[in-house]
């Protein structure tokens, strides 16, 4: 079943996310980042940060929560078992820090056929609860067509 292209531009209400130090440490460890500023508050403050910063790919955690709402949208018609991650882009206004209280709002940025496959791009805009822009993420997913070929990264 093809994706519903009428969903281009559809917006999803923001998800709340409270950034915990242990979560940032856990995520940094999971990608092998050992620089003390990502683990130790004193090292972070000595480097001029208000608290432990997130590693650059951490916003994907918020992006996934937003994405979940999009995948489960019955109007979209996505079979998640066919999905691989095609591309990822982050744009940063500032790093995420422990203690941030964030809102992540979603939008369908692209939905189109690509030969036998289909492409779905989900944009997540992250702000503080006070409306300060923090970063945005565009996750481009490829829904593989009916052939058994399994190209693509994730």
């Amino acid at each position, binding site marked *: 079943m093809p994706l519903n292209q009428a969903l281009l531009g559809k917006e999803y209400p923001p998800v709340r996310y409270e950034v915990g130090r242990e979560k940032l440490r856990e995520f940094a*460890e999971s*990608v092998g980042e050992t620089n003390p500023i990502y683990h130790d508050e004193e090292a972070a403050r000595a480097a001029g940060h208000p608290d432990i910063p997130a*590693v650059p790919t951490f916003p994907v955690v918020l992006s996934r929560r937003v994405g979940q709402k999009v995948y489960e949208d019955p109007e979209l018609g996505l079979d998640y078992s066919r999905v691989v991650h095609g591309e990822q*882009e982050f744009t*940063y206004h500032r*790093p995420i820090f422990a203690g941030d209280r964030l809102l992540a709002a979603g939008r369908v940025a692209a939905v189109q056929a690509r030969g036998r496959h289909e492409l779905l791009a989900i944009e997540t805009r992250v702000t503080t609860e006070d409306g300060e822009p923090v970063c945005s993420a565009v996750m481009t997913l490829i829904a593989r067509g009916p052939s058994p070929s399994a190209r693509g990264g*994730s």
Partner: protein
Amino acid sequence: MTAAAEITPGQRLDQVVHTIERADLIRYAGASGDFNPIHWNDEWAKSVGLPGVIAHGMFSMGVAARMISAFADNPAAIKRLRVRFSAMIQPGQTLTVSGEVADIDGNRVKVRFWGEDEAGNRVLSKGETDLELG
């Protein structure tokens, strides 16, 4: 923070080399919340046409970001980061991430990067990051 004045076009970044273990993918699944079974269940992965479990693209991007973070020396310097996931990589394989300075405009530095497995297949391609250095 790394100073833009110390950087030259074409300069190579220090590579990051990471041999992927199954435990990495399980740890990343837990930390990221991405529990798609193609990353930890071989039978499931094979049932959807994959050779076995494959790494999360975002795990590979996270490893690549270590190289960028080390070069920028300050997370606030990173303004944009993007990559394409162009091939899969599996536990037991080694990801080598390389990068070079593509352009310098005042304190703005553009870096291109890529990631390859041990056979030279491009796992990460079209990697780009924009930095604003001190």
